[in-house]
């Protein structure tokens, strides 16, 4: 008897649940079953859903780096109710989880899907689904290997250009020979490919450029420290540390410090980093490092502009928007630069 009652109760709750889903399914918080870290900014209770533009934002984990933290904060500050947006965020460093989150957002019928892909491959079918559902897709920060017709706009840093700017700067230092320890980011990411590509090309082209070791430290300072430590223990000679982000450059420098190898302006080893964290630019200012390449994390205003354009009924002027980015040299950087560009 008791069991029967329980079953009936459960059945009743389930039906109620279904009805509830049916009535406001459009506003239900996206939940991903695969473990992608999804979080809704807020539930839209009283607000008429017609007024707010519904955006689903898929980003990498904001704890990944200072860059991502700044990027996420920038997006969260822009896509608020006050600015006319109803935003949901999903975070993952894994491509498959991100794709799952995208599918969820499509089911939830968002107006815009903003995407910073963990990996460049594998997005075709889910973006096709989005297109079929009439959802505008805007890529930010990272490009993907998919047909251009699948997205409305892409706001990116040109990683190839970042790499090239850095390598050109290095070539401009006029060393007799370049012996480079190359510490790479997570293999396959756009930042890694762009920043590695420029250096690889240069090393292949010039006879006095040489890679001492090329290892991935996966954006991890500790790993970078161990890699450089190993090179020092082996007694290898090198005069350039080319680290693909600031954290890894910091790890490398820690190994140099422990071994008594001087680094910085006019010293034995040239240290190069990327992303322009504030603390890294301060290292430049103190002339402990030599170069830092910018990777602009502030894309929200660009995205906002594009959404406004699409909402007004016209197509964005350019499909690919490339953001302005700089490279800083320790000999010319000023405190002003640190305050303005540090993240």
């Amino acid at each position: 008897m008791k069991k029967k009652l329980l079953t009936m109760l459960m059945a009743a709750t389930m039906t109620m649940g279904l009805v509830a889903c049916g009535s406001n399914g459009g506003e239900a918080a996206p939940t991903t079953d695969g473990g992608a870290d999804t979080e809704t900014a807020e539930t839209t209770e009283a607000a008429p859903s017609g007024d707010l533009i519904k955006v689903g934002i898929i980003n990498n984990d904001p704890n990944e780096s200072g860059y991502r933290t700044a990027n996420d904060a920038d997006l969260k500050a822009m896509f608020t109710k006050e600015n006319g947006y109803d935003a949901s965020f999903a975070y993952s460093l894994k491509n498959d989880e991100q794709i799952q989150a995208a599918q969820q957002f499509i089911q939830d019928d968002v107006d815009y899907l903003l995407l910073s892909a963990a990996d460049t491959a594998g997005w075709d079918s889910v973006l096709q689904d989005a297109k079929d559902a009439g959802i505008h897709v805007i890529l930010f920060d990272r490009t993907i290997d998919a047909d251009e017709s699948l997205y409305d706009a892409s706001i990116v840093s040109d990683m190839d250009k970042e790499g090239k700017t850095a390598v050109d700067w290095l070539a401009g230092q006029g060393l007799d020979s370049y012996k480079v320890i190359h510490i790479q980011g997570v293999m396959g990411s756009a930042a890694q490919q762009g920043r590695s590509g420029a250096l690889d090309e240069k090393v292949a082209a010039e006879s006095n450029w040489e890679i001492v070791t090329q290892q991935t430290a996966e954006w991890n300072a500790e790993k970078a420290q161990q890699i450089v430590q190993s090179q020092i223990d082996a007694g290898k000679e090198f005069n350039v540390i080319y680290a693909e982000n600031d954290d890894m450059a910091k790890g490398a420098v820690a190994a140099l410090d422990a071994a008594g190898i001087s680094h910085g302006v006019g010293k034995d080893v040239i240290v190069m980093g990327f992303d322009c964290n504030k603390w890294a630019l301060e290292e430049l200012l103190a002339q402990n490092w030599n170069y830092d390449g910018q990777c602009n994390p502030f894309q929200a205003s660009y995205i906002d502009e594009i959404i406004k354009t699409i909402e007004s009924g016209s197509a964005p002027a350019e499909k690919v928007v490339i953001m302005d980015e700089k490279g800083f040299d320790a000999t010319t950087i000023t405190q002003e630069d640190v305050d303005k560009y540090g993240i």
Partner: protein
Amino acid sequence: MSKTKEKDSFLRRLVSNQMFIPLMALVLLAIINLIHDPSFFKISMGLNNAGNHVLSGYLITILDYGSELAILAIGMTLVTAASGGQDISVGATIAIAGSAMLHVLCGGVARPTEVATPVIVAFLVACLVGMLCGLFNGALVAIFKIQPMIATLILFTAGRSIAAWINNNELPIVPDPKFGYFGGFIPGVPIPTTVFIAAACIVVIALVLKFTNLGLYTQAVGINEKSSRLNGINPTLIKILAFVILGLCVAVAALIKVSRLSTINYSVIAKDIEMDAILAVALGGNSLSGGKFNIWASILGAYVIQFLTTTLYKFEVSSDALAAYKAVVVILLVVFSAPSVREYLGRFGKQLRAKKEVA
């Protein structure tokens, strides 16, 4: 005849000793390195950039980077022995403890000009946080009888986000160079500080095991919970205690990790270190389903793993392939500890001895 028997039993004792596997692995690695490049064992004295004389070389690197792992292996062995399962939240709790430490040190400001509180206070807070995490895991395992791996999955998943939340998602940097001593060198001492920290932990646990019943009770609970209860031991308490001790080890490891760079990165700090710690316990020949344990074998196992890692770096193995090599070690361990293989080896050994006797 009697002499060969003596030799035989000596050999058998050696092989059956728990230290045999990690020692063999260590010797094997050492021989490989010796053949490939004897300069692997060279230790030299040099000046570091702070102007101190310090020792350097691969062996020093191994001792240095192996210390966190050795410290964690202590706690992980106790947890494994008492609960018959492993704690996979170690890396994430290092992030939490480290984050709490930095929060206290920097007074909640991302870029302070000087430390807000003495290091010792910050460290004690980190210990408290680490032990609380251990208490949480331990309570789930001991009171709610959840499998250790599932119970610790909670902090494994949430830990790094909690760590980021503690510091409001900012990455504080400790301005005082003295804080770097814990993960580097103290001026005037040529040996990495981490070696002393690891040694201190090892001495403490040795004293605890010698002068308390912790070891005996842990083993008793791990072998048979019911009969240990009948003999007046409280299994719940012992299990929770094991997790809390691991929490303490985590806090010490967090101090080293955070000190190495005087900052923290929540998503990558101590990444996958739990797997290495569990591997250290397994390499030490401890049963992963609980019961008898040998902490010294685990600690040796930890250094063997670091030896392997350093060797692989030396051979310029791509660092994302390191995990694959460790997997090979796991496979070998699992195969050799499988009952069917053991039985076969035992039979084989007996046959060999029998033949000798006949001869």
